[in-house]
């Protein structure tokens, strides 16, 4: 936001782009299409995007996230919490997402029930 106006920006949650449900994937890609002025018509090839949640750059964890040290997760969450609040405020102020932040589910979950003064 330091450089580009909100009208030129689109926020996407990659979890939506890779969601197992096709409807969620299509919704996210549809937002992208509208952002760049494309109408989804004959030009498009439905289903080509996100045919699978797996992608070429995926990596396995030797230690799955749920087994990683819990205190690290707590530290990170605590440190990032106010930053996420600021992000949510910024997103709302510039109308980069709806007021309930449904376009960014993780951020919606992050700020719900938390004091983001």
């Amino acid at each position, binding site marked *: *936001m330091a450089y*580009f106006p909100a009208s030129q920006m689109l926020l996407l949650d990659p*979890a939506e782009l890779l969601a197992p449900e096709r409807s969620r994937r299509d919704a996210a890609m549809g937002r992208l299409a509208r952002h760049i002025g494309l109408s989804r018509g004959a030009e498009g090839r439905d289903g080509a995007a996100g045919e699978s949640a797996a*992608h070429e750059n*995926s990596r396995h964890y*030797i*230690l799955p996230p749920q087994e990683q040290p819990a205190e690290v997760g707590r530290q990170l969450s605590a440190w990032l919490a106010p*930053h996420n609040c600021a992000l949510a405020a910024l997103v709302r102020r510039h109308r980069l997402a709806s007021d309930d932040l449904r376009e960014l589910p993780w951020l919606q979950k992050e700020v719900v029930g938390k004091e983001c003064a």
Partner: protein
Amino acid sequence: MRLGPRNASPNFSVAGPGGSEAGRRAGMRASALLLRAVVSLSLLWLPLMFWYRPAEPDAAPPVPLAPGTATREDVVVVSQAPGQCSHRGTYFATKAAQTKLQLAQRRGWRLWIAGDESEGLASAAALAAGNDTAAASQLGLLLALHEARPPPRWLLWLDSELLVTNPSAELPLAEYEARGTQLVLWGEEGGAGSDRLVVDTAVLALRVGTWSAALLAAALDLATESTARSRHHTGRSVSALLAELLRAPRWRQYTQLERDRPLFTHWRAPPDARTPLSALGAAPAASLPLATSFRGCGLCAATAPPASLAACRAALMRTFTYTSNFALRPLGAQHAVLGSTHVRPTKDGVDDDGDGDAGGDGERGGEWLGKHRDSLGRCFASLVVVGSQRSGLASLHGALKRGWDRRVRVHAGEREQHFFSMDNHFRLGLLHHQRLFHPNATALRSCTEPRGSAATVHVELSSSYFDYPKAKLRIFSVMPRVRVAVLLREPVARARSAFNVRWLTWLCGKLMWSRPDCWAAVTGEEVVRQNQVGPFQMHAALKLWRACTGGGEGKEGAAPRVSCLRADYASKLRDKATQELAALRACVAQQAPSAQPPANLGGDGDGAGGSSAAAAAAAAAAAVEAISVPPVGGASWGEGVRWDACLELDGPMTGPKQLHKKMEDGAFVWRSMYQVSGGERQHLGARPTRPPDMPTRPTLVHLLPSRSLPSGAPERLVGLLPGVADAVARPR
């Protein structure tokens, strides 16, 4: 010494050819006696000759070559361009020359930058044919410019390493003329009781007339051959010549030592004597000097240690952009930050979005600038997708490549180009970038499918564009109207994923790219060596493999034990998180010392505040940037903190390799903070008020990549810009 017949000239012979031998000998004795008498008398007179000093010639009143009352300031700004320099000296010297051009344009003065004609520069030799000295030295050049037609009223000399810092600085030429002043120097009398005159001729103003011509001629007579002809003279040599001459009343009575106006300062001056630049955009204070010398930058010779050289050049660039803002403003543009040659549109001062920054979401800027940049970027991407590392960029890239929409075309080549984020890539030039979309393009703006056309949407994706320090500014400067899509992954998951990839790299090297569970394939030292990506990684991988197979000795053919790898992973993850969080807390503490991070900000009692070394490094980095961004206080969790400066991501010595290492090896937490705090409109500070007499012509070379800048100085540069060259008047 015996003066005898051998020393006598035959003409001394007083006897004729037909005289007797005795007469001839008598004549010779008489001649010798006469000669001895003459020599003796001469020796007696010698002390008297040294003692005697003829009176000063009558000091005729100076006669100006351009007589009459000064109805306008007819000044020629004079300087020399250094020769071709090593490193980036020529580039910096060109910036110095540009500020002189801006001064001349702003004040309606003429400009003369002397140099080799082979470089396309004006040469004094062309003015005074056959006068090699004029072509070479400061004194000769000033003397030769007395022959300019019409003669200027004043010559204003500015050394080549000087940058004009205050184009509005007062220069009361009419007052000088009224007092009969012919030479204005910014110097000092010597200390108490001393008759020494200390002058610095980096800046001098000379009233063009008979007096000044005689002074310069006398100085040239005093000059040694090397001083007179030295192209890269030192100011000291000319200063010494003038100081010597000014001991005589004839010259001194028409010279004024100007000490009331801060017209000249050295960048290396002590802090208390140094006039700091105002903050970005502020109108120059009355105390801001006309010019600042950057002699310490070693423009043509790297004589200073690298660190101070880099700091000097960084200061030079900040000064240049500060001055350049005054020329850009009427075009609706200004430099985005001090020190960066990128420009951005200015805002029109209408707070139409209520955010209090007197600017709407849209950057309006000037009509000319808008057209220029639209034209510049017409063959670039129309959509840039960014997102921090491990945010799904590869997935989206794959989807677009697979043909999600045939109207969408992803750039050629590597998946991530990092063109705008890495200095070494950006230096390749915009044409290089344009060829990602139009491989056959031979010139900028040359493409068959301009961006935004209905036929094609060109897309570029790079993770580094999201959080590498310079990327956003560069993209904005080149493509201010590009669409941007930002991938925002849940930040804790992103940090974990980024650390996971790094850990896999440490163990597997290139194997990481061939199988997701690459650790299972690390079965021996030879495997590690074959897949290593660098000596440090190989060392770490061997150490871990040995530790996790065969009890520290390694066991060929065996994969490391998973339990051992997991323990290593957990240990390194803890260490990395602790280390990075401490550094981030140190940034908060250092930039907002009155406010400590609250306990709930990851504060687990493990020493919030970080190491003193980290704090010191952060303070040093912040000091470097202090000139452009004032410290922001009062924040408890990092709001307004300049993280990139604090973490030394954007320091003067941070090259592409260092930056890449810092970002990929040590910024896992920071890259999950999504740069919200301090990022919003931070760089777009106040702006200078528009002076009524601001020239309307631009200097736009900063829009070009540095490699395309021609060597030499501004007359060549303005030649690139139609409509500007005629603004550079030359002595006729």
